[in-house]
């Protein structure tokens, strides 16, 4: 019998555990994957969420219907407006409130601006993980001008708390739309430059083309939504398929990339950003005059009729859904939040990252643009 202590110890140390997150530059936000590694490649992935869990669904049951509007933007930090709009749309549907046309246009403007901000932020994150820091500096800087617009409109840079059941809190300030058009002109000039230094950049191309391919069947089966789903070739967008607000009056297209790899997921966001600019330009042109809100009961008498409704909004990451249950009281009975990153971050990543090399893991994570606060809630 051959005794070889070295060989045995080698077997033991064949696998090692690696923590990506919570304190790691390669992860988005405060979230953790535990990777079981063999050499350079990933063998097993465990997701470890809950580092941002605040118990929103419990807290919302304790607050009045309209008090919740201050709470929910915090569910998705980079793009808080989708929460407010989805929640307000749910309440309006249950109470049968008609929202004035002008308020709907303002909502579309706010949503699309937030989408652009979120896309810029997501694309800058990719630059951080590939060591391409120019894109971080440029894109975050450009995003900041959107926050300036929001600050003028709502008073807050990050959290706006601007929507209200029945409309929006206040009308557009004088001159705001001109400033918006100016910004769009600026951004349109910048877009070809982004193409040059991000999408035609050999470093980013080598790091992302062909990485982490997701087929259309996989994407549907694993509940991916939004740009990740569309990059895999399933052309489903809630704005087109189940139009809400005034999206059916606006002319825009869903760009098709359809390769399903990491590069096409980023490219999809870039092309949708151009469509968002198109939508904003139409809104600036078409926005009608009129009231920006309708009369609703005061917050202490604000009761939503008994029933339940699932309202949803297409966010920059996918379908953001609010399942709202009311028992006719002044407080919600139960609100369930469906964050778009939930399925990809907690379920699909544990399968997709297996077999990948360690340096590709952060790139994959950033190209899916996941947002830990929305699945931790």
């Amino acid at each position, binding site marked *: 019998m051959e005794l070889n202590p070295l060989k045995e110890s080698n077997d033991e140390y064949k696998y090692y555990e690696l923590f990506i997150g919570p304190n790691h530059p390669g992860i988005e936000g405060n979230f953790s994957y535990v990777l079981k590694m063999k050499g350079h490649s990933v063998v097993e992935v465990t997701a470890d969420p809950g580092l941002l869990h605040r118990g929103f669904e419990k807290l919302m049951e304790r607050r009045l219907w309209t008090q919740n509007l201050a709470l929910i933007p915090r569910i998705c930090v980079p793009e808080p407006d989708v929460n407010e709009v989805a929640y307000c749309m749910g309440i309006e549907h249950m109470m049968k409130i008609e929202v004035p046309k002008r308020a709907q246009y303002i909502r579309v403007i706010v949503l699309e601006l937030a989408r652009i901000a979120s896309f810029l932020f997501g694309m800058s994150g990719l630059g951080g993980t590939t060591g391409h820091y120019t894109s971080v500096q440029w894109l975050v800087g450009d995003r900041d001008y959107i926050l300036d617009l929001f600050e003028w409109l709502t008073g807050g840079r990050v959290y706006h708390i601007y929507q209200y059941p029945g409309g929006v809190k206040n009308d557009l300030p004088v001159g705001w739309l001109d400033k918006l058009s100016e910004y769009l002109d600026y951004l349109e000039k910048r877009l070809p430059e982004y193409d040059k230094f991000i999408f035609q950049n050999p470093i980013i191309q080598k790091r992302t083309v062909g990485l982490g391919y997701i087929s259309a069947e996989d994407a549907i*089966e694993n509940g991916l939504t939004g740009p990740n789903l569309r990059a895999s070739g399933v052309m489903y967008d809630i704005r087109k398929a189940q139009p809400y607000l005034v999206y059916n009056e606006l002319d825009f297209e869903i760009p098709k990339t359809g390769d399903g790899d990491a590069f096409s997921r980023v490219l999809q966001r870039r092309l949708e950003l151009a469509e968002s600019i198109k939508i904003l330009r139409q809104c600036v042109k078409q926005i009608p005059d009129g009231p920006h809100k309708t009369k609703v009961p005061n917050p202490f008498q604000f009761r939503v009729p008994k029933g339940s409704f699932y309202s949803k909004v297409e966010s920059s990451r996918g379908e953001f859904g609010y399942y709202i249950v009311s028992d006719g009281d002044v407080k919600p009975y139960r609100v369930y939040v469906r964050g778009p990153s*939930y399925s990809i971050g907690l379920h699909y990543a544990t399968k997709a990252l297996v077999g990948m090399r360690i340096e590709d893991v952060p790139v994959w994570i950033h190209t899916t643009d996941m947002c830990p606060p929305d699945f931790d809630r």
Partner: protein
Amino acid sequence: MDDILNEIKAMDLKASWLGDWEFEVLTPKDRLASTLSYLKLKGFKAFMGLSCVDWIEDGTFELVYIIQSYDLALEAIVKTKIPRQKPVIESMRSLWGLCEVYEREMHEFFGIEFVGNPNLKPFFLENWLDTPPLRKDFDTLAFSEELFEFKEDETHGIKPPKRIE
């Protein structure tokens, strides 16, 4: 679009429209799997979410499965009720692998047991010993006050810190 609703009604299940793009189906607990697999065959291939409502006065948990069809652009909301005292239901992870994580979450937040799901370990919370937090009888304010509130006299038998110059 009413066809699918009529077909479901023909199966002796209650179904109704909730909005323009979504309908709800009420099903008993033992017919949940067959209803969901029927809808999956009909094109509702994407699993969007699993939620639970604690109807404490009726003594039931209402499980809510949200599934979507990309071809029909429709959302189906399948609801089933299970008793609150003995919350057991079969796992749907054979239909959608995605259900595994949602069920794990519901197990943690409501204490529902999913038969057939091997992975019901703690997920979001660490070292949780109280009532599952999203149940209606869990008082989050009392919990927070008890665990986190700063009481000046609370010194654990150690002398309180003095401010350092």
